[in-house]
């Protein structure tokens, strides 16, 4: 979804502009409804025992710990989808200027590095 264009100073063009923004408003409402629906889905999925489900479908043994990890993975996937919707539509990142993308690429790199350091600290072969 593109951002509404900058408003025209010409009153004659204003009505057309307002109509264009109105179309975006419908999109915002739909995304809001989608986010609410996925909140309900997140809650519902957290009560599904994925370990038992995988075990019954594929006839493999899944420990409670592995099942819990699957639940975490599923919940994070849904959360990332919701966060993507907020960022792309509400924060207009679906169509933004290149400079902002550059800032975010740097941010993403450093956040990744931060989590990588956390992983290294946890997986310390000296103390483990």
């Amino acid at each position, binding site marked *: 979804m593109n951002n509404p264009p900058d408003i025209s100073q010409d009153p004659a063009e204003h009505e057309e502009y307002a109509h264009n923004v109105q179309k975006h408003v419908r999109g915002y*409402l739909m995304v809001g409804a989608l986010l609410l629906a996925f909140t309900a889905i997140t*809650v519902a999925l957290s*009560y599904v025992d994925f370990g038992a489900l995988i075990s019954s479908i594929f006839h493999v043994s899944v420990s*409670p710990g592995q099942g819990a990890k699957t639940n975490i993975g599923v*919940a994070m996937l849904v959360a990332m989808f919701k*966060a993507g919707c907020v960022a792309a539509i509400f924060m207009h990142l679906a169509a933004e200027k290149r400079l902002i993308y550059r*800032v975010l690429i740097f941010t993403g790199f450093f956040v990744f590095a*931060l989590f990588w350091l956390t992983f290294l600290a*946890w997986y310390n072969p000296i103390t483990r």
Partner: protein
Amino acid sequence: MEIPYTISTRPDTGLWNAKIGIWLFLASEVMLFGGLFSAYVFLRLDAQPGEWPHGLLNVPVGTMNTAILIMSSVTVVLAWAALKMRRYRAYWWYMLATIVCGIIFLFVKLYYEWPQKFEHYGLFIKSSALEKYEQYLGNNRRTEKGMEPRIEISGHLHNPEALKDPNIKEYEIGLDPVFVDPNNPANDRPHFLYVPPTDQIAKIEKEDVERIDSFGPWHSAYFASYFTITGLHGAHVLAGVLVFIYMWLPVSKKLYQRNPEHLANRVEVSGLFWHFVDLVWIFVFPLFYLL
């Protein structure tokens, strides 16, 4: 002197200045919350079996607060769109709705969720005494099933004076439902609806207790990260609400009459901050309430 590029875009960046400013600020915010979330991951990965609690938060209330924050994200973007369409009245109402949503979110957190935690107690049982309280813990069955053991008995403390009085030799605790029927498979996973502590009182000898704490930040790594992250998030909600109140007051109408696009840009910048706050909560909610 007038601040340049508040409305028009800079030729080199193609953006008005405040927009770059807010994105740089949000980048620093990503690092701030990223650090806290990585600490959460670290603490959770290193938690010993039974030390990372589940199902201690009120899921329906958390779900409601999530929905409120999502609705406020919608209303703030509608407020901005209303300004772009030069409909000040609609803007005023959408902004009021956003402020109300933010206040409800904070109210629920500060006056309902947090205080409830400080009145709830957990008794960590010494490993040598776990067998003695098997009727409340149900660890034999859990071990058979390959599940993490229960090392804590929680509920409402009926004799808080025992915390300070060394002459009282045992704690009397109104058990949480899970400890009344610990071998019921229905209690293996957290319940959706909050169930208050029962009337069944367990007497736990002090000498069998490693430590007793209310569900405050001092209780465990889980509650330390819960209060830190939700506290910082709550501070962001408060900041957002204060900014929105300023932009909802009559002073905003004066700016609107002078230059409506300037007000629209201000709302866009503060809206970006608000969406970020919503985005953080999208991860906080499942990590603390559901998983």
